């Protein structure tokens, strides 16, 4: 079995006096698609902020490719090949579509993804490349956010609530594009409120509840009962 690309051991996180994560143990294997589910406030976003470096954690709690990244800044983490498609898309409003994508390439990592590759994946972005990013529809903005993350040629891509606030038909399109994105040995973490969708695209799943891992298993093995117990904390 290969070493995991990302490993969390006893990960804790605090906002001031408030503790949001209580000793999370989790790992992602190379080439694997992992789903993280959980109710609002379970700690999913905090987990994402910790992994990407937006939140500082205790030493040795997060290891990426065998190296401790728990005390690195977000830009240093990004340079090592970890990218995120943030919740709510969060494009840069004063940048055009093309400029948003180019910001993603700022880390300067080589790989298959460049402007041309992103435009081939989402041809509509080529047509709209000089528009202000916020003038696009929600689905198109999500494409920009995904393209922006891909431009850094990441080894591990984090999707935070990508279906939030989008129409069902658009969500379907976005998820249809995923296999074309997660390839060439890339790993991914998908944080999702839509449990069925999350289980369908992932190999393994973790469920969080009140800052702790309440369930871990293969996505096609976990049962509905196990999930509702882990999700809501009731049998």
């Amino acid at each position, binding site marked *: 079995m290969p070493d995991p690309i990302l490993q969390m051991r006893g990960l804790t996180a605090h906002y001031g006096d408030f503790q949001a994560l209580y000793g999370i143990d989790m790992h992602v294997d190379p080439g694997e698609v992992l789903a993280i589910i959980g109710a609002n406030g379970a700690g999913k976003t905090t987990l994402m902020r910790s992994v990407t470096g937006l939140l500082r954690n205790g030493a040795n709690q997060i290891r990426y490719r065998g190296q401790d990244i728990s005390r690195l*800044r*977000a830009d240093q983490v990004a340079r090592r090949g970890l990218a995120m498609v943030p919740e709510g898309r969060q494009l*840069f409003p004063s940048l055009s579509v093309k400029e948003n994508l180019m910001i993603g390439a700022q880390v300067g990592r080589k790989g298959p993804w460049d402007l041309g590759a992103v435009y081939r994946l989402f041809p509509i972005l080529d047509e709209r490349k000089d528009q202000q990013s916020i003038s696009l529809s929600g689905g198109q903005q999500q494409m920009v956010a995904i393209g922006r993350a891909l431009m850094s040629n990441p080894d591990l891509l984090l999707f935070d609530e990508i279906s939030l606030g989008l129409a069902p038909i658009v969500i379907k399109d976005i998820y249809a594009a995923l296999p074309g994105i997660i390839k060439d040995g890339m790993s991914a973490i998908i944080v999702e409120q839509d449990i069925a969708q999350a289980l369908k695209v992932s190999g393994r799943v973790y469920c969080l509840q009140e800052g702790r891992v309440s369930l871990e298993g293969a996505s096609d093995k976990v049962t509905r009962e196990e999930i509702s117990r882990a999700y809501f904390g009731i049998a």
Partner: protein
Amino acid sequence: MDWLNAIVQGTLLGGLYVLFAAGLSLIFGVMRLVNIAHGDLIVLGAYLGLTVTTTVGLHPLAALVIVVPAMGLIGYALQRGLLNQTLGDDLLPPLLVTFGLSVILQNGLLELYTADPQKMDAGALETASVTVGGLTLGVLPLLTFGFAVAVIWGLQWTFYRTGLGRAFRAVSDNQDIAQLMGLNRRHIFGLAMALALAVTAIAGILLGIRTSFDPSIGGGRLIFGFEAVIIGGLGNLWGTLAGGVILGVAQTLGAKIDPGWQILSGHLAFLIILAIRPNGLFPRIAA
């Protein structure tokens, strides 16, 4: 003809105020920081120019080659070493820290250079003039205005045509997400302050050629720059150019009525515009 002359001279004077304002506008645009010590940094630029001209014997304009990068380095160090620690949601730390910095700079300059007014000697340039359509225009004011237009154009180009400008705008939009994209905001802010103080160096040297200066005049320069920014509209560089010109014209027109009214009429023009158009004449971002 007298009035036309006053307007033209005021426009050229406005060029100097544009240079005072450009750095302030840039810093606010990138990191929403208002630097109370900005005027004292302009004066610091003038004194550095003075030191270079007297010790090395360079012409003040040639001294730009040394003073501009020196101020840029000071800006980067200042931002990374001090000002980055003040950024956040709270308004007080940046305001009070830059206020403290202003007092330190002012008294530091006083200690080093005394309170005696100083001036840079630019030789024939100071008195040279050209006659255009019956108006006599000083070469130095013309040159200053040329610098102002070039600086605004250069900043505009940097902001909208270069990778650095893209990074400035991205960090200004959303610091966290920019950080996720591999942009270290502390470094980007440092570069923005370096650029702002490089412009400030130009402003300081042109100020020091034009008039005499002493360590106490920083506050007044900050106010002129600030008025130009607000008149033009926050976040709009070309607006800042217009704001500086309006301020300069208001001052020369006021001085024409009564010499004692020069500065006062500039302030009044600013207050009138604030009363009528609170967001300035050409606003781009809300205050």
